[in-house]
């Protein structure tokens, strides 16, 4: 393989693994939107909160497994409570109100999180070593491989859950038409809570992998901003879309950083995804796999 091709391959590979980690977080967003029609602008802050809880648990000398269990339980509890306290009273209110409320939640988490769990940046060591893993002519840091694996695992699990399990089918029914689902004897409120709890689980794992990669502090919440290009591209209510959108955004970002950065002096990574997103919004706002039904004037 020539030099150029190897470079491109390395960029695509790294982009794809990062992209899978983006889709992991985006999954939390999609799960909530699909089931409850609520938009979670605090997804990044969920991830940050999970990261903070993990490092705090590790700080108390807890083994990693215990810390992960703690964070999953804590995030389930948190998102469950959030749905009850904040989102439930806003049912039936304009979508703008829900957006602003989750922005408020984001501000609360960003403000109180570091106050409660500590301000300084902390490392979240995973027992996976630092030796890059060679894949073909390129290599990846192990954390990216683990992150990508976790993301893929979740997609398999959720795919099975929505296709085969009784609860998953009920949840799809709720997402499709709340009134009819209710008439069929499905407890809609319970499934709303369940959707948020699942988003909590996803965010907990997202917090572990992203926290381990970037270090845990308030800045971790900025990962959440990448969720929007991913879900817009993939389609807001499509789980497969989150996967594909994440891959595309990750690869675009990595290629932009590799090929454009030398010319503009860096930072295209934080720029290219949003430009792509604006283009998608103009041309195909429902995304690649989203339901074609979009509220228009």
């Amino acid at each position, binding site marked *: 393989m020539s030099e150029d091709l190897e470079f491109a391959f390395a960029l695509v590979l790294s982009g794809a693994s990062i992209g899978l980690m983006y889709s992991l977080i985006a999954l939390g967003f999609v799960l909530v939107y699909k089931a409850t029609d609520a*938009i979670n*602008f605090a997804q990044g802050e969920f991830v940050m909160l999970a990261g903070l809880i993990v490092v705090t648990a590790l700080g108390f000398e807890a083994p990693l497994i215990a810390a992960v269990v703690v964070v999953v339980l804590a995030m389930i509890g948190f998102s469950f409570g959030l749905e009850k306290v*904040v989102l439930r*009273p*806003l049912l039936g*209110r*304009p*979508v*703008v*109100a829900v*957006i*602003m*409320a989750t*922005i*408020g*939640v*984001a*501000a*609360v*988490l*960003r*403000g*109180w999180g*570091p*106050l409660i769990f500590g*301000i300084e940046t902390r490392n979240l060591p995973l027992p996976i070593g630092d030796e890059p893993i060679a894949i073909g002519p390129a290599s990846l840091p192990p954390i990216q491989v683990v992150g990508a694996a976790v993301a893929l695992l979740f997609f398999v699990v959720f795919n099975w859950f929505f296709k085969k399990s009784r609860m998953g089918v009920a949840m799809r029914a709720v997402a499709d038409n709340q009134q009819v689902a209710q008439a069929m004897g499905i407890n809609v409120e319970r499934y709303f809570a369940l959707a948020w709890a699942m988003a909590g689980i996803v965010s907990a794992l997202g917090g572990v992998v992203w926290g381990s990669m970037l270090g845990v502090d308030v800045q971790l919440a900025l990962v959440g*901003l990448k969720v*929007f*290009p991913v879900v*817009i591209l993939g389609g*807001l209510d499509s789980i497969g879309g989150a996967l594909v959108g994440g891959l595309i955004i990750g690869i675009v970002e990595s290629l932009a950083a590799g090929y454009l950065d030398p010319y*503009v*002096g*860096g*930072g295209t990574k*934080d*720029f290219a995804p*949003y*430009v792509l*997103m*604006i283009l998608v*919004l*103009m041309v195909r*706002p429902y995304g690649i796999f989203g339901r074609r039904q*979009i*509220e*228009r*004037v």
Partner: protein
Amino acid sequence: MFHRESGVFKTSYGADMALYPLPIAKWTVVILALIFVVIVPLTVHEYYLSILNLIFIAIVGALGLNILVGYTGQISIGHGAFMSVGAYTAANLAVKLGLPFWLTLPAGGLMAALIGVIVGMPSLRIKGLYLAIATLAGQLIIEWTINHVPAISGGAQASIEVGRPNLFGFTFNTQGRLYFFLLFFAVVAIVATLNLVRSRIGRAFVAVRDQDIAAEIIGINIYRYKLLAFAISSFYAGVCGVLYTYYFGIANYEQFQLIVSIDYLAMIIIGGLGSVLGTIFGAIFVTLLPIVIRIFMENVGSLFFTTAEMANVISGLRLGVFGGLIIFFLIVEPEGLNRLWRNIRSYFRVWPFSY
């Protein structure tokens, strides 16, 4: 504002839309003007004047955002970026071409309006959630561009120093002088908004917000009015950014980050969506809150925290309290402080015979 009517006897639409519901209202305005133009600058200490100055700037920006969110029902998470567009336009014109403020100020506003319309374009096809995300992208892209194009940002630390505003040889270089400078623009913004929202345009905005399909059927060109709302709103934001620039003497992108957009959203939610008076309350509230938190923490918090930790604690608290207030008002009192004010007023209007 503070007067009491004995009853509401309006018999025409004109009377209902009038700025002064009763002749006595004119006197309230005169008294308010006296207080703010004569009494306050003579009696109030410089430090408190500087707080008032910040409130005046915030009022301009918040009014703009309220025209868009409160009256037209569109959402924007990109107003911080629109302010930065105005600020950098004015700073560049003032420094590179040496233009006076009465040219850079409208120029900054117009530039922000142009960018605002471009960012608002997606609102023609999409709304609600999608528009929120599009304006968020606008914020991030504008922030990135300013940061990465030295021609705009002036190179080092992406900040440009600007001289104090100067009118016919008179320089507004103290808090006391800036007070009049900023008071003027705040009053212009308030009066312009009051008149805008009761004009044909303002009523069209409200129609688009309340029921867009019905609005289109009665002959309102929705696309035009949505873009107009974006233009007017970001014009206000641009002017607000220019005022910040002149007030601090420096244009710096750090003053206009995503967090600022959220601050301004907090102002209009806490104050009251779709209300001019509420916007003013919100601007006062949100400007005072961090100051109150700081004073509180400096007195009480110093028992628990070291000075080094204090800055982080204060900024965290500020954000946390803001978020909490946004949620609280959205759930408990969606009409904000304005509603509380109206309740108090209507209580006293019939007092002491409340039945």
